[in-house]
C-alpha cells in the first residue's frame, strides 16, 4: 500500500474492504451450514442363510431378549436348561457389556478358549432400531465373533 501511495503521490488510494468482509463472512456462514464434517460410517451386517444351523455348546451360549429403553434379559443356556438368567442394561447398571465380558472369562476358565462363545440377539416389538444397532455394536466392542440376530417367537 505504501509503495502505491508514494509512487502515485497525488491521491490517497484506499479501498474500503468492509463490504468484501461482509460478503466473505456471508459465504463462510453458508458453507458452515451446508458442511457435514462428520461423514456417515458403514457398519457391515451379515445375515445367516436359512438352514439347519449349527449347535453351540450350552455353556457358551447366551440369549439376549431386548425390551424397550435398552433393558436386556439375558439367559445362559437354553429355555429347557437355564444356567443363569437376569436383566442387564445397555445404557445403565448392571451393564450388559460387563456381563458379556464376565461370561467370556467364565467360558475361558471352563474350556480354555472362547471359540464357541455365541450370542443370540432377540429384539422384540418394543425395541428401537438404535438399540438393535447398539447391541450389534456391543458385539464388535467386546470382540464376540459369533452372534445371531433372531426373531423372538411369541
Amino acid at each position, binding site marked *: *500500500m505504501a509503495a502505491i501511495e508514494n509512487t502515485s503521490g497525488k491521491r490517497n488510494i*484506499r479501498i*474500503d*474492504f*468492509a463490504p*468484501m*468482509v461482509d460478503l*466473505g*463472512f456471508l*459465504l*463462510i456462514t453458508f*458453507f*458452515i451450514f*451446508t*458442511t*457435514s*464434517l*462428520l*461423514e*456417515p*460410517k*458403514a*457398519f*457391515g*451386517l*451379515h*445375515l*445367516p*442363510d*436359512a438352514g439347519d444351523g449349527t449347535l453351540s455348546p450350552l455353556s457358551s451360549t447366551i440369549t439376549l431378549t*431386548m425390551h424397550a429403553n435398552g433393558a436386556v434379559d439375558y439367559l445362559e443356556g437354553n429355555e429347557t436348561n437355564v444356567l443363569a438368567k437376569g436383566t442387564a442394561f445397555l445404557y445403565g447398571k448392571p451393564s450388559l*457389556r460387563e456381563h458379556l*465380558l464376565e461370561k467370556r472369562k467364565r467360558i475361558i476358565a471352563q474350556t480354555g478358549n472362547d471359540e464357541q462363545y455365541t450370542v443370540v440377539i432377540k*429384539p*422384540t*416389538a*418394543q*425395541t*428401537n*432400531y*438404535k438399540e*438393535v*444397532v*447398539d447391541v*450389534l*455394536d456391543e458385539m*464388535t*466392542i*467386546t*470382540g464376540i465373533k459369533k452372534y445371531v*440376530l433372531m*426373531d423372538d417367537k411369541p
Partner: protein
Amino acid sequence: MSKLNKIAKKSTWVDMTAFVDVSFLILTFFMLATKFKPPEVVKIENPKSVSSDKVADKDVFKVTFDNEGRVFISFSADKEGRENAQLTAEVLGRQKGLNLSPAEISTFIKFSAGGIGVPVGQLKSFLALSDEDYKKFKQPGIPVADTLNNQLNDYLNALITGKGGKKPANIMLNGDNATKYPYFKNVLTAFKKNGIFSFKLITAMEGVPVGTPLYQKHNAEAK
C-alpha cells in the same frame, strides 16, 4: 464526511485487509471441506457405532426407513446407480403391468436419487408429479408391515431380475434411531427373500470405549 472531520480529530479508518485475509482463508477451508448432501426427502437420525468404515458413494442402492416406519428406496446419482434405477423401473413396470412410458422411467431415475417410497399401485401417478410437487408430497412409504404384501420385495425382485440375478455392489440400510424393530425385521425379510445376506448399515461414528477388547485391539495395532 466534512462535518464529521470537523468534530473528530482522528480518522477512524480501520485497515480491513487482515480481516479479509482471515475471512477468505476460513472461506477456502469450508469450500474445500464441503461435500454437498444429496437431496433427501426424509429426515433420518442414524444410530452410532464404533465402526470406522467409509460409506461408498458409487453404485449405491439404499433402503431408508424413518421413525414412522415409512420405507424408501434410492439409488446413487452416478452412472451405475442410474442404470440400476432404470432396470428396476422397467422390470417393475413389466411385472406389475404399469405400462410406464420412457418419460416416466426417466422421472423414476430422477426421483430415485432422493428416494421413492410409494406402493407399487401408486407408482404411476407418483411419477406424474413435477419436481416441486415431489418435494412437497409426503410419500406414504413402501408397505412392508404385512408379510403377504411386502412390496419392498417387489422392488428388490425387479432390481435383481433387471440386473440378471446380480446384486448391486453397495447395499445400504439407512435407519432412524426411533424406528421400531418390526419394520427393520420386515426390511430384512425382504432382503433375505431376494438373497441379500450381506449389506451395510449407515451409522454415525462413536469413540471406542476405553478398556474394552476392541480398544485393546486398536491399541495393539497402533503399536
